[in-house]
């Protein structure tokens, strides 16, 4: 009998997978916390330009986005760049009301820190962007950000 026992002891036991759920849960929680559900469905195509002198936008709840680019479905909306506020196409005239609406969502003392981020397709002409900027000035939303992708500084 003793012989048999010795033989059994030599076998290497399987690696325990009991801690696997723990590891997976940890990853799960990480992703649950960092996940931001896409707030809006983009109806315009945006290829942002590249730039090197960037500032990161913090305090996301103080940032509102204006999207400008050619529509995703040109057969319905044509190929001319259009502007999208929240979920719908809009015109420049809608901006002051939109800004007012956004201001109501934040605390009063935070209003001066609000930033409007312009996500614009790189092929867009400046005409529409200048019009947007003029409207932003009129509604006193003076902090803006030109959203870009990162590249190295030119030599």
């Amino acid at each position, binding site marked *: 009998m003793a012989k048999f026992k010795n033989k059994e002891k030599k076998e290497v036991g399987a690696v325990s*997978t009991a801690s*696997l*759920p723990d590891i*997976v*849960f940890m*990853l*799960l929680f990480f*992703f*649950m916390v*960092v*996940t*931001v*559900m*896409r707030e809006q469905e983009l109806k315009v195509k945006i290829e942002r*330009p590249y*730039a*090197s*002198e*960037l*500032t*990161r*936008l913090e305090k*996301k709840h103080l*940032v509102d986005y204006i999207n400008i680019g050619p529509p995703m479905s040109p057969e319905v909306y044509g190929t001319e760049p259009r502007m999208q506020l929240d979920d719908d196409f809009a015109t420049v005239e809608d901006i002051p009301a939109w800004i007012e609406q956004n201001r109501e969502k934040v605390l009063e003392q935070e209003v001066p820190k609000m*930033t409007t*981020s312009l996500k*614009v*397709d*790189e*092929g*867009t*002409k*400046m*005409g529409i*962007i*200048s019009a947007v*900027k*003029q409207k*932003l*000035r*009129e509604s*006193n939303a*003076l*902090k*803006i*950000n*030109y*959203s*870009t992708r*990162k590249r190295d*500084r*030119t030599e």
Partner: protein
Amino acid sequence: MSRRKLPEVDAGSMADIAFLLLIFFLVTTTMDSDEGILRQLPPPVPEDQDIPDVKQRNVYVVLVNAQDRLLVEDEPMDIENLKDGAKEFLIANGVFRDLGDKENFPIRTWVRRSDVQEKIDEYETYIANAEDDTQRDNYRKALEKWQDKMTAIEIAGEYKELPGSALISMQNDKGTTYDTYIQVQNELESAVNELRDELSMRLFGITYNQLEEKAKSTESGSEWEKRLYAVRTVHPQRISEAEPRNVGSY
């Protein structure tokens, strides 16, 4: 009576469930952190207001037309040369040394310690004798400017400052492509940032970006924050978002 034991629940499928959820969140996660070029728009001006006269030598005019070509100070220019051009405009007449007077570039004037101290004392007496709160606030704002200059002198030494009206002005056409607009803005900004980099490297041995990070990670009023403001005071960012208008849309 024998007590019936509850059967143990099999936890083996727990991992599968967790995996399923994990994959769901992996797919839906968008880690889009937004970054870009920050700008402050000028406040709206009433239509009847006069545009102040600015000396031509104090303005660096960059025009971009509908064909995305650049006209800088009345000369055509490639975008590759824009950064060096802007840097020359900013430091042509010296920052820490006298380099003589280059025509057509802004005249930098010396900021002397004694003058700044005099101004600080002056405003402090104004504040002490101010009649009401609004007046006091105005004096205080002016005083802060001079105190910033004093900090800059203490950290970087006496320097020559740009005249208050000196600025880089960019104007674009309605037909200019957004990409070109951003590239021009970016080059102008990098001109200022490179000057700040040089100064920061010389004084503290780190780049301007690192300096910003350090100032951010320490509490307000710290030594690093003072250093950051000193660098910014010596090399101010003067890029103006000009009123849109059509330049040469031919």
